């Protein structure tokens, strides 16, 4: 048995990760086993995300079943909950009051969320408040605060697009759904805030380099927050290059209000169907309209993904990486920024990787995978469901074939979409004292 890291004191000897079969979404339960009782319990538990947008196609487990299993697995006490970001597929389960109450009964002591969710963050306030958002003076708006403001405005825009398109047939409807996934999570967000208020250590809203607060609840581990960077630290994370007019989204919202933008049979378009030289172009431009609206929704989708909390757990010799849906614009900070040198030093040693963004083409940077050596040591956990994501083309299929192949070249990839129907979860387990690959625990043990 290896000595615990850094300082004397109890440290986990074993770590279990339970990946629930939620369909298209994430729900992970980390259990740290100390092999002996510490203050009356021999394990500590952290739940990372709990949401879905598309359930498994055969005998899907219900969220209630999963909540009950969480309660059972952690013996009635859940130490902390991490919600990586505000997308439905990561937090939808928190939207029900009943499930919230059931989870609250497990007395989580800390709720970790991303910095943009901080309810005390007021983007209109003259002086900034909240994690890592430093004052820059009144004249130049703080880029981080402006980003939060933009996100909120953009959500209002997405709400309008979603409201107009959801339920439409075909690709329009799909986009409407995607738009709504950006905004309709208020119930879940409110519930998380309630839970944070009641938790012993309340809520913690983190960004790259901040303290997660998990160490004091889970003795003998270290947790690095690798992301998300704030736009102040890393402007790239705020998304595509755009005009720097902070009123952009406001203007766009007004515009959409004004013209009832997305109704498919706009009189002007109908009139333009008259024979003549513009007809062909306007037909083509109908697709552009879709592209344009899609661009807006995608911007928001990317921006929210890039608010994902990225956590690196150091447990004995083990390194576990959970990155939510962070995309390259956020990852690039941990991978490239000068300031993040300290943060990335453990990345090459990762032996358990929660595959980012359900296996999308931009959720796992190539340069991250290149850090990992072949040899079967890396275990990957992939929570996904094919054809459930908004797919524009073969190249944006989730999960993305070449990525999965690359990870398979590094070691086993456990995935929820190949689990038999009705199976609630898959467990992997490993001792913290060595680097032998994680093993899948047979369904009936423990």
């Amino acid at each position, binding site marked *: 048995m290896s000595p615990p890291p850094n300082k004397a004191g109890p440290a986990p000897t074993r770590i279990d990760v339970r990946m629930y079969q939620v369909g298209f979404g994430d729900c992970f339960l980390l259990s740290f086993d100390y092999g002996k009782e510490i203050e009356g319990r021999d394990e500590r538990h952290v739940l990372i995300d709990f949401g879905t947008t598309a359930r498994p196609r055969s005998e899907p487990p219900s969220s209630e079943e999963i909540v009950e299993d969480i309660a059972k697995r952690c013996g009635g006490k859940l130490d902390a909950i991490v919600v990586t970001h505000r997308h439905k597929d990561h937090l939808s389960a928190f939207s029900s009051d009943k499930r919230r109450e059931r989870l609250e009964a497990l007395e989580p002591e800390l709720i970790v969320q991303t910095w943009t969710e901080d309810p005390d963050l007021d983007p209109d306030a003259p002086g900034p408040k909240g994690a890592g958002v430093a004052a820059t003076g009144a004249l130049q708006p703080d880029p981080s605060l402006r980003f939060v403001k933009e996100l909120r405005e953009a959500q209002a825009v997405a709400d309008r697009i979603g409201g107009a398109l959801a339920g439409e047939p075909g690709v329009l409807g799909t986009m409407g759904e995607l738009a709504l996934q950006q905004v309709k999570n208020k119930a879940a967000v409110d519930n998380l805030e309630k839970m944070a208020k009641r938790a012993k250590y309340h809520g913690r809203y983190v960004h790259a380099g901040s303290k997660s607060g998990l160490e004091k609840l889970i003795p003998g581990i270290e947790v690095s927050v690798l992301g998300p960077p704030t736009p102040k630290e890393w402007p790239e994370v705020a998304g595509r*290059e755009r005009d720097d007019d902070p*009123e952009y989204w406001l*203007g766009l919202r007004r515009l959409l209000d004004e013209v009832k933008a997305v109704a498919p049979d706009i009189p002007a378009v109908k009139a333009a169907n008259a024979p003549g030289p513009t007809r062909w172009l306007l037909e083509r431009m109908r697709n552009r309209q879709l592209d344009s609206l899609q661009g807006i929704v995608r911007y928001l989708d990317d921006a929210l993904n890039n608010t994902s909390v990225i956590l690196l757990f150091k447990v004995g010799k083990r390194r576990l990486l959970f990155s939510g849906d962070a995309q*390259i614009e956020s*990852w690039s900070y941990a991978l490239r920024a000068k300031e993040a040198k300290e943060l990335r030093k453990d990345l090459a040693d990762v032996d358990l990787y929660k595959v980012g963004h359900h296996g999308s083409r931009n959720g796992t940077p190539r340069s991250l995978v290149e850090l990992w050596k072949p040899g079967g040591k890396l275990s990957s956990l992939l929570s996904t469901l094919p054809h459930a994501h908004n797919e524009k083309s073969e190249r944006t299929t989730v999960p993305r074939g*070449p990525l999965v192949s690359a990870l398979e070249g590094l070691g086993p990839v456990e995935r929820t979409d190949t689990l038999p129907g009705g199976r609630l979860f898959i467990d992997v387990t490993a001792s913290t004292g060595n680097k032998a690959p994680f093993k899948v625990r047979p369904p009936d043990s423990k």
Partner: protein
Amino acid sequence: MSSMASDQISGGAAQERALAQHVWLRVVAQDTEVRTGDDGDEVLTESVRIPAEHLDAGPRGARFHVVDFDGTAGKLSPPVTIRLGDEDPFADAAAASEAAKEGNARFRARNVYAVAAATLATFEAALGRRLAWRATGHKLFLVPRAFAEANAFYSPLDGAIYFGYVPGAESEHLTSLSYDIVAHETSHAILDGLRPRYLERGLPDQAAFHEALGDCVAMLSVFGHEAVVEKLLRALGQSGDRIAMKDLEEEKLRETALLGLAEGLGKAIGRNGPLRRSVERDPTPDWRDRPDLVEEHSRGEVLVAAMMRALLSIWTGRISALIGPDGADLERVAEEGTKAATHLLGMLLRGIDYMPPVDLEFEDVLEAVLTADEIVSPDDRHGYRDAVKEGFEAWGIATPQPAGIVDMTEREQPGYGRANASVLRSDRDEALRFVWENAEVFELDRTWRTSIEFLRPSVRIGPDGLVVSELLVGYVQDVELTAAQARALGVEIPAGLGDDVPLSLSGGGVIVFDQFHRVRLHQRKPLEDWQRHSRRLAHLVEIGALRAAEEGAPARVDLGEEPIAELHRSVANAGEVW
């Protein structure tokens, strides 16, 4: 005349006197944010000269059709009729300024039309012929308020240029009111018509050239407006009409005039960064080893930087005679700047005809520009060619060795016995027959699939003031093969690329016939240059462009559905996705 008469900008009673060849239309000289006037609040406008033509409402002429459809809002604005002379509501600078500020639909339609038409006219004048769009139609659609996005792009598929707008709380910013953006995008469309294969993924310089040409045309066109140059010079804090001697040094002019211009351009779509960097960059001959310059877009900055260096050198050369003890007359300095820019732009554009149809590299650009200029101006009295050469040399770009353009008059002449000169001028099949018959003279291997890419007559004014007429025949050679087969030929296959990955290799060239139908020049990019293909493949693998091929997609690697739109997006992380 019918009721259409009022829609014409042909200058009035057509039948009774000679048709007017040009009209003047007032447009935004640079961008709506560049202001002038006593209170500094008038948008800087200038009248540009464009070819006169019959114009329907739209405006819709022979080559352009403006359709004001807002794709985001799904709103179609009525077609606009351009009026001239006393009826022109925007002839007056103050009125034009107001219209520009409010984004007036009539004004934006005419602004986008006029700038695009002026840009096309500049290209046509330099190349001495009409230039076709890549798309089959004769008219290029211009959409002045296409979508609520800070972007503007040329779509080869739609045969259209879409200009986005940026909504704001009070007013919106229209990219179609930025002279440089309209000129830049129109240049993409024109170049795509001239060299369609430049939009395929090739050597990094090729994609870079598409952007660089757009940027050079944008910068040099805007610099061709005296009002703009004067304003930039006055920003030096000059009082009165003189400009001090110390402000006339090359370095000083770079800092003020050019940098000031670059900063003002492309703001709305975030392109001013690259433009500014192009002016600021200090030349380094070993830039190809610099990681920040390997990427296609920043590569384009190198070419722009080389051209801007040439511009400064030509400009300072031209003003040296104007300088007295108390400096020089500001207006004259501005005028010389404008002339230098216009001349340099013409040189660059004339060079396009001598650039290879495929696999363009910066060395070819330099060679083509110098060769083209030599034909119309053999003695280079003002040292313009030297200025261009030095601008490029500072960046380590010299003409290719061995030369890409071969002087065929010094070589064995092809056989004309089986060709018909007058048919050859207009018939691709006849052109192919000629190439086929003379494959040995042109050092072409008949094994490869050979096709005629274009057949174009060109007319220019020669050094003696007489007309120089030429015929340009562009051909390409292609071969489709697997990576293993390419390796057997001598191409270095990057590690990790499977033997079965389908690849496509190309070569090609331009054969230039003189007025006597004799072959004068041969620009060539041999298909058998395996080293070039090795470099190309290494680049494609590096940027991930071969991934589709690795997964079994067809061998031809193009930029995707909207190549130019893609080019304009940030690709800083392009190598990171799967």
